């Protein structure tokens, strides 16, 4: 054997190992997965299907836009309740920079949001309503004010509805239903079609639906956080267009909802929420495909339940990171507003508060009851932001906040203190860190403290002088 052949051998081994590395432990794309249903004789070759969820992602995107542009209650409601008529997609809309393949929600799936909303009680919003009723009530009120912006009470309904819908519908459906009870052995078994006439099995489709609610592009795990973020922001068509057909396929090439927020946090480099969750979905789906249409064994079910735990615990962290971030924003806004009422700064403050509240309410909608922790979170954020009693943006005069609704359905007020509320925002950040273990920590208002503490080091050397 000459030196050359040995060298060539090394190069070959090297190439093989690098290509294996690039591929990791196999698949990084969600689908296609084969049809495994026993006795299926149709012509389908890919069992992946979650167009109903993509339809809901588009309803949610459009609902938010509709509120913001005064579309009128009937139109806004049609995005919440669905409609038999044509439902134009308001976001994303095709542009030269970012071409998408559909412009009507019902072409993708005729569906609705309201039917899937959280039915449990939401005690963090005035009126003592269920999650679904809270969303309906916010939507109704949004149409009574310009662009869904209610300065008097400090509510930005486009933000409130959007952020709470993501949790109270998507996160709730995935982590309280599809990745929870539908993973039980006798619920939607893998040796039967999901429903009569379906070409996918019970477990295949349950898993797909949860993935659709997560909102990641099927190839998102192969991309960087920046690429995923820019896809959601409609700025990177090249990265989005995985199959190079010249358009972004809304069913599989777009990032939505919490997947988008995950990529935003991951951009900071401290976290990998997007990849972790999306890859867990892919790996779990592979386990189901590998069962080849048989009922899942206990071991297989344990594996996918483990993946489900990874998905839902990280998903919850993404929401907690958002709560952390917007608590910091609200704190910063109040710092500015204390210096003097400024309508523009006040508008921002109300927007940030709406995001904070919507994300925080979402934490209540998974399968686990937050109990005392949930009450603490609600107790810190309260029913409304601190607003000025004389004019809303003058937060130094007669400050108050919404504390409930009267019999006629009007919001009632109580006195409130700006400084105390700022303190609550700090406590909320601390709570997110202590209880949910957030890491990205955007807008960390206690960063100065932890930085200095780190620099001073601790005194555990117990030196004696």
């Amino acid at each position, binding site marked *: 054997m000459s030196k050359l052949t040995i060298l060539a051998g090394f190069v070959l081994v090297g190439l093989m190992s690098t290509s294996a590395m690039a591929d990791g432990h196999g698949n990084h794309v969600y689908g296609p997965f084969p049809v495994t249903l026993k006795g299926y004789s149709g012509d389908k070759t890919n069992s992946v299907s979650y167009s109903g969820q993509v339809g809901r992602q588009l309803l949610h995107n459009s609902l938010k836009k509709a509120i913001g542009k005064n579309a009128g209650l009937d139109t806004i409601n049609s995005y919440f309740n669905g409609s038999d008529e044509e439902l134009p997609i308001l976001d994303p809309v095709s542009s030269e920079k970012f071409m998408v393949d559909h412009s009507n929600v019902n072409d993708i799936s005729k569906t609705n949001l309201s039917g899937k909303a959280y039915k449990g009680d939401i005690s963090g919003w005035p009126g003592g309503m269920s999650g679904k009723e809270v969303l309906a009530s916010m939507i109704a009120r949004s149409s009574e004010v310009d662009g869904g912006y209610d300065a008097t009470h400090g509510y930005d309904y486009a933000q409130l509805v959007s952020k709470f819908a993501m949790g109270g519908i998507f996160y709730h459906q995935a982590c309280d239903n599809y990745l929870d009870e539908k993973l039980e052995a006798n619920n939607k078994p893998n040796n039967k079609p999901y429903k009569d006439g379906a070409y996918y099995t019970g477990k295949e489709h349950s898993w797909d639906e949860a993935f659709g609610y997560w909102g990641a592009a099927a190839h998102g795990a192969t991309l960087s956080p920046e690429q995923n973020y820019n896809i959601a922001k409609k700025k990177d068509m090249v990265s989005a267009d995985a199959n190079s057909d010249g358009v972004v396929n809304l069913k599989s090439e777009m990032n939505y909802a919490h997947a988008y927020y995950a990529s935003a946090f991951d951009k900071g480099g401290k976290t990998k929420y997007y990849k972790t969750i999306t890859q867990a979905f892919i790996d779990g789906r592979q386990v189901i495909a590998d069962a080849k249409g048989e009922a899942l064994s206990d071991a297989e079910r344990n594996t996918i339940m483990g993946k489900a735990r990874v998905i839902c615990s990280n998903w919850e962290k993404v929401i907690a990171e958002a709560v952390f971030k917007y608590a910091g924003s609200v704190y910063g806004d109040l710092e500015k507003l204390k210096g003097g009422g400024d309508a523009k700064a006040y508008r921002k403050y109300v927007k940030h508060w709406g995001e904070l509240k919507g994300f925080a309410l979402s934490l209540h909608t998974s399968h686990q009851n937050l109990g005392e922790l949930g009450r603490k979170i609600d107790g810190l954020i309260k029913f409304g932001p601190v607003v000025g009693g004389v004019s809303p943006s003058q937060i130094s005069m007669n400050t108050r906040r919404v504390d409930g609704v009267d019999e006629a359905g009007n919001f009632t007020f109580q006195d409130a203190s700006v400084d105390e509320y700022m303190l609550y925002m700090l406590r909320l950040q601390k709570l997110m860190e202590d209880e949910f273990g957030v890491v990205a920590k955007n807008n960390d208002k206690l960063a100065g403290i932890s930085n200095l503490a780190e*620099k001073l080091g601790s*005194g*555990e050397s117990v030196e004696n002088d």
Partner: protein
Amino acid sequence: MPEIIELIFSDLSAQFLSPRKRLFVGYLACAFCIAVLWVCVVNRTSLKTAIAMIFAPAIWLSRSSLFDVICFLINRLLFSLLRPVLLTQITVATLVYQLLHLQVLMPIGALEHVNYWIAAATFTVFYFIFDDFSRFGVHYLMHRVPALWEFHKFHHSAETLTPLTVTRTHPIEGLMFLIRTAAVQGLTIALFVGLFGSKVDLITIYGVSIFGLIFHSLGSNLRHSHIAIRYPAALEQIFISPAQHQLHHSRDPRHYDRNFGVVLSIWDQLLGSFHPSTDEEISYGLGPAEAGFTKSVWSMYWLPFVASFRRLTRFRPRPPKGFERLR
């Protein structure tokens, strides 16, 4: 189990390899050089004699030194295990910072627009002075409060001084030091973040506070040694010399309760406990009545609890006698 061993090993190596620690090899090397220079110049000896004097086996291999090593290891083990449950400066700082939000005297961020270097310099100097004062204060109490003195005896029971004696501390006293650190750091951090906002910084070199680096590089480790480095009288009025701390360890009653300070001697002057260094030969340790204290490592750890409990409950079968420190 291997995890614990790993934890302890990394803790031990950090004691000598991190410039944030008093026993960092670099500081020990500095101390050695200063000691050589001092002995050669003051005692007019050769380099060889100086080195032989510095590493005198009678000091380094004494029973007291052996006890230092054992206590060092026991304490490291204890505190590595305790670390996760201890109060941290972050907790204190967060609490105080939250309290600052609720008072009206000082609005949060009142000095936010001050220049970075002014803010950082103010913080660094303030922390150095406050930290030094609080060390003095705790040390003062350790001597003046009888129940605490029982624990501080642990440190004063050393009969030969080596740099490792700095870690000869009863765990209860160690705990108090930790609380002191958390309180001082927590208060300072909260106050300065409250005043100057997040940009406030500690001025550091190689990740060590500039004052800490100067203090340790200038031979802080010689405070616990037999090299009696003295400063000119005027300088000793401001900074405590190694010889002054050695005098603090003296078993001669004339030297009791003198020189509690660490870096600055101004606190001792203010409270009347200042004593300049002397050229007398000093012998270290507790009074003759305390001979039983260092009977075993066990007695050093256990007796303070018994004695302190007696002091607290005023249950004293016999009055202390002889040279014992009576307070």
